[in-house]
């Protein structure tokens, strides 16, 4: 019970810290937010200008603006978007599902690819490992927008197998998912292979082989699980890459989603939307870290409460 409470308090702290950072950073962007409300080309009289400022609380001192912002955040009122004239909550809720679809698909695909490639290339022969290591390096160093464009060029324009942009069907999800998942899979593979090879050198692997267990089974049944532990520590980075990657992928493939909204909102200085996205991301990060802690215990019995190592 105390653990849950600590969790909630620390989650609130993380969201607060992220929101504060976002608030401060957004103050540094030059330009008058009033034009974000009315549009940059609109002619506004001094009087209207003042009225809009007052309406959005922009005439208040920065500290008061900040406190108001935190107070709204604490009561889950994100305010209205300057640009879309809709509540931020509605905007995010509308755009959430396409991004969740994309992120979930990538979250399934990346580990699958990583596990498959890791097991296939950690064998006795060296060349598959070298080849895969080279490919991983190339994939990791490729900017994802370029990767996306290349995939589009080959599979959509040249071969015509898959749609160029969002059609609502599963087919339109394939290329964006691959674009998002490939770099993640490449890094995960590097980490997992390292862990797998280390585990295969451990005495328990020798014991398993001495039982007459086939090499593949030693890998699947024993070593793979050990290699999952270092991979799990990458979950924070994984989440960040998913969110950041979504911004790029959604723009390259012209998909609706949070990423696209975020880019637009930052460009237009649509502060409430940006702040809403930041708060949402912080919540996602907190949720992921809770999930990872649970997964750790699933993988490693030494971390479970019932079977865990008692701290002395």
């Amino acid at each position, binding site marked *: 019970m105390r653990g849950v409470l600590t969790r909630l308090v620390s989650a609130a702290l993380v969201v607060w810290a992220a929101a504060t950072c976002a608030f401060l950073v957004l103050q540094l962007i030059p330009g008058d937010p009033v034009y974000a409300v009315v549009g940059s080309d609109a002619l506004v009289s001094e009087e209207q200008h003042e009225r809009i400022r007052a309406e959005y609380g922009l005439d208040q001192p920065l500290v008061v603006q900040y406190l108001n912002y935190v107070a709204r955040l604490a009561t889950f009122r994100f305010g209205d978007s300057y640009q879309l004239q809709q509540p931020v909550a509605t905007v995010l809720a509308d755009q959430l599902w396409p991004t969740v679809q994309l992120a979930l698909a990538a979250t399934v695909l990346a580990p699958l690819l990583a596990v498959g490639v890791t097991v296939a290339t950690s064998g006795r022969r060296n060349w598959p490992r070298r080849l895969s290591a080279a490919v991983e390096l190339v994939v990791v160093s490729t900017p994802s927008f370029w990767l996306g464009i290349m995939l589009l060029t080959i599979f959509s324009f040249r071969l015509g197998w898959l749609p160029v942009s969002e059609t609502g069907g599963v087919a339109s999800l394939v290329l964006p998912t691959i674009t998002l998942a490939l770099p993640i899979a490449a890094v995960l593979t590097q980490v997992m292979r390292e862990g797998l090879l280390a585990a295969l050198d451990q*005495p328990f692997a020798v014991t398993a082989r001495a039982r007459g267990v086939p090499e593949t089974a030693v890998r699947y049944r024993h070593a793979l699980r050990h290699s999952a532990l270092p991979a799990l520590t990458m979950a924070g980075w994984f989440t960040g890459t998913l969110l950041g990657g979504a911004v790029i992928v959604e723009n390259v493939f012209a998909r609706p989603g949070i990423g696209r909204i975020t880019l637009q909102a930052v460009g237009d200085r649509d502060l409430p939307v940006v702040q809403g996205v930041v708060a949402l991301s912080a919540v996602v990060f907190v949720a992921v870290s809770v999930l990872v802690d649970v997964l750790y215990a699933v993988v490693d*019995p030494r971390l479970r409460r019932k*079977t865990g*190592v008692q701290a*002395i």
Partner: protein
Amino acid sequence: MSLVEVADLNVRFAAGRVHAVRDASLRLEPGRCLALVGESGSGKSALARSLLGLAGPTATVTAGELRVAGQDARDFGPREWRRVRGRHIGLVSQDALVALDPLRPIGAEITESLLAHRTVPRSGARERVVGLLTRVGVPDPEERARQYVHQLSGGLRQRALIASAIAAGPGILIADEPTTALDAAVQARVLALLDELKQQGTGLLLISHDLAVVEALADEVAVMRHGVIVETGPAGRVLDDPRHAYTKELLAAVPGGRPRASRGRPPEGEPLLDVTGVVKRFAGRTAVAGVDFTLRPGETLGLVGESGSGKTTLARVVLGMARPDEGSVLLGGEPWSGVPERARRARRHTIQLVPQDPLSAVDPRWPVSRIVGEALAATGVPRAERAARTEVLLERVGLTADLLDRRPAALSGGQRQRVAIARALAPEPRLLVCDEPVSALDVSVQAQVLDLLRRLQEELGLATLFISHDLAVVREVCDRVMVMKDGVVVESGPVEDVFAGPVHPYTKSLLDAVPRRARTAREPAQERL
């Protein structure tokens, strides 16, 4: 009929550059135990692993003859080897904590052995696991099968590992240092289990550097050095009447087989260390429950007990690393425990620690000169003098100056421990706390390090608190001994008295657990006293 027959076996590593085993020949029979004896790096493990086809991907194994379970194993492929492993030859490695998969319950590990050869249908596996655990003497087998390695005690772990090795009913068991990680009493019980398996007809290949263990089990002994079997014969003959010079050397190095240090003068003067009524608790568990002792300059006090008896906690209190919950420690007549760190720092150099595993107790990236130099710097030796002082210290511990630039990984186990001792001597301490200082070393190296410690005590008049689970070692270097159990000192006194006439049943059981050789060697040594 021999279950395994080997003639002229050679194992080479790294494209032939390392010749780990040269022309080895041996045979394993049902119900007999052959012991392979030798120090680390002698090739005994490589030889044993090659009988399982597990010498490793970089190894090249050639042999004049290699027959396993009646088949010629020289041209076995992976599939043929798999049929032999576990089914005809089982492997029990050192330290079950890492030799069993820490992420799987031990029941799953044993089941794996059963199912690998389809010796039982999947549905019957659970029952067989319980049967096997019962057979190796694990209590509450149903419950234990669901537990993980880290939840079991050292002895139970090793039993579980043995159960997984015998699950598919192999005729031969390779036991590679099966008791090295265990306490004396637990070791004795595991050896008894292996002996029982032998009586039931399993052939054993025992690999050990510990001659006392070998004597307890072996019918025949093969002594290995630098990859060559230098002497082989019946156990009694080889151990009592060794012919090869190296075998004699090994036997002479066994602690307990050597004369005891006789000082002549009992240590006198004011106690350097005065421990009174020390109690230390951890989260409801009492690790040390009221211990008193004193230690005078030049005196060596042995602290004996099994893991969990509170030895290490007591040592931490003495070192000033843990604050006692009750009681006090005086150092040189002044308060040592319970004073603020500021008041202690200037005196910290008086107590130094010699660790069990020097490899983990030094920074692996630092060269020897820096490891020792840091300790000198901490006591305010000016930079300009450090190099010269380091060389003097190295000389004192029997090392030469050409090791100054080596990193720990490039040193042998004995050299590393000498460096750790040199580091401990650097601040000119008056008291050394040695925590199992030789248990990670080979016997002959062990003997050298013990000699060194003894010489240093005499030359420098150091007081020593010597913690060990190895009674033979304690007997060899200590003046007095203190036996700890469950945080309490159950017996203490001069080493000769305690070893000759133990009073407390626990001390008796500890002494009984010491394998025979170390015990019988005690008598002539006493006559000399």
